[in-house]
């Protein structure tokens, strides 16, 4: 007797599970959460805090906010950031002042921990939302963040 009741119970549990999958089979269009990724690139917008890569924003006068204090370089756990700096003459005071020559960012070594951006006193660097970082040669992942010929925005002090 228990043989047949076992079969009955077994089939019943299977059908209960099938009712769940069947529901989604019939309503799959409505509940689909997968994105058609390469096709939706134009409309795909990442969250504004998304950590894609470190970028250095420049304004219309090709000026950035990095004073070259190297706090980000010290905060970075992996040696991702390398600041090559120089001493230039400050135009206003005429004194010698530290300025960045190249802000080198090795994206290939970055773990996206966000400590550099957290520690930056002048908000010179921030997160970019670009995540499409596949390249043919890894040297393309080493970037100089300050644009050529750019200089420090006046009035930014650390």
């Amino acid at each position, binding site marked *: 007797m228990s043989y047949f009741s076992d079969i009955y*119970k*077994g089939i019943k*549990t*299977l059908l*209960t*599970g099938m*009712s*769940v*999958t069947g529901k989604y089979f019939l309503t799959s269009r409505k509940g689909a*959460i997968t994105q058609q990724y390469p096709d939706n690139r134009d409309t795909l917008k990442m*969250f504004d*805090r*998304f*950590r894609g890569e470190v970028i250095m924003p420049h304004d219309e006068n090709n000026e950035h906010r990095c004073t070259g204090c190297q*706090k980000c370089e010290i*905060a970075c*756990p992996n040696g991702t950031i390398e600041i090559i700096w120089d001493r230039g003459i400050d135009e206003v005071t005429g004194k010698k002042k530290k300025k960045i020559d190249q802000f080198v960012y090795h994206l290939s070594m970055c*773990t*996206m*921990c*966000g*400590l550099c951006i*957290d*520690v930056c006193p002048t908000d010179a660097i921030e*997160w970019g939302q670009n995540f499409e970082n596949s390249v043919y040669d890894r040297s393309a992942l080493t970037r100089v963040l300050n644009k050529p010929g750019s200089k420090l925005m006046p009035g930014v002090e650390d």
Partner: protein
Amino acid sequence: METEVVHTNFKSEEYFINMGPQHPATHGVLRLLLTIDGEIIKKVEPDLGYIHRSIEKMCERDSYQQIVHLTDRMDYLSANINNEAVCLAVENALQLEIPERVKVIRTIIGELTRISSHCLWWGVMGMDVGALTTYFYGFRDREMINDIMEETCGARLTMNYNVPGGLMLDIHPNFVKRVKDFIVHFKTKLPEYDRLLTGNVIFQKRTVGVGILSKEDAISFGASGPVGRASGYSCDVRKHHPYSAIDKVTFNEVLKTEGDTYARYLVRIQEMWESLSIVEQLIDNIPEGEHRVTTNAVIKLPKGEYFQKVETARGELGVYIISTGTKSPYRLKFRSPGFSNLSLLNHIAVGGKIGDLVATMATLDLVIPDIDR
């Protein structure tokens, strides 16, 4: 009387087989050396070290802020809880007063992390015993938590959201709304989990009575988390040593006494309900205030030894810091839950079949980077 026929052409002997390091059921690069007689398991010997990154040694080099992001990479499914453990240890050592807001947000995010980890576990648990559909359903619900994390913390898996002294950023304005949406969504989905898998006759045949761990063994092997609680060992750190805002909420410690694979499964399903209720109790009462206490740029812990334990999705994570007063710890030891839970695998898998081993391992919920570090 029949005489016993002794076969000389065939003989029975034990043999070795390798399970892993690249096996879909080991969930990572874990290699199991199985000694097998027919299909009966005689011995299971885990071989570790394939993903060892010497995180503990790297901690001796790094500053206390930098250590936090390494813990993301241990148990990556409960990254936020690992971060919290290190931050709590450092904050206790510095005797920092942490704002209530930070404590509540940390608890909410920790419980969301636990739900997301259990969702993933439920998906792969079903997949290990042959039900592929669960994988997609588990990941569907986990996706909502990942979106919450991505919007607030900036990353989906390795968040590094906690810093010694608080949180890196305040919560995103959409956070509360999204979490409430998730609670409503998940309350309709969790019963489906039960209907789809828990009651399923094939699943029950695979799990009930398999891999039994007694309470005494659970204690002596140092089992923690759902593995220990399924054997009746009350080991929830949140109950016994409350941290952050967990003492403000009421929740039940889920205990089962059977100690088999099915009991471990039920404990985790029940824990998702408990975590959901914790989030529900806290989400409307996030106090106003600072999200961060300013610390020195270079944190130097006073000379001494500090220990902090938290309950991750897998069990008890302990952080033991020995400081000599410099900017990095002299020694930092992680007591990871996965390592102790793996150590009892040989004990409970011997005598079973290979298929039972897969089901047993699925409910131990091993994360290999947590074991190897």
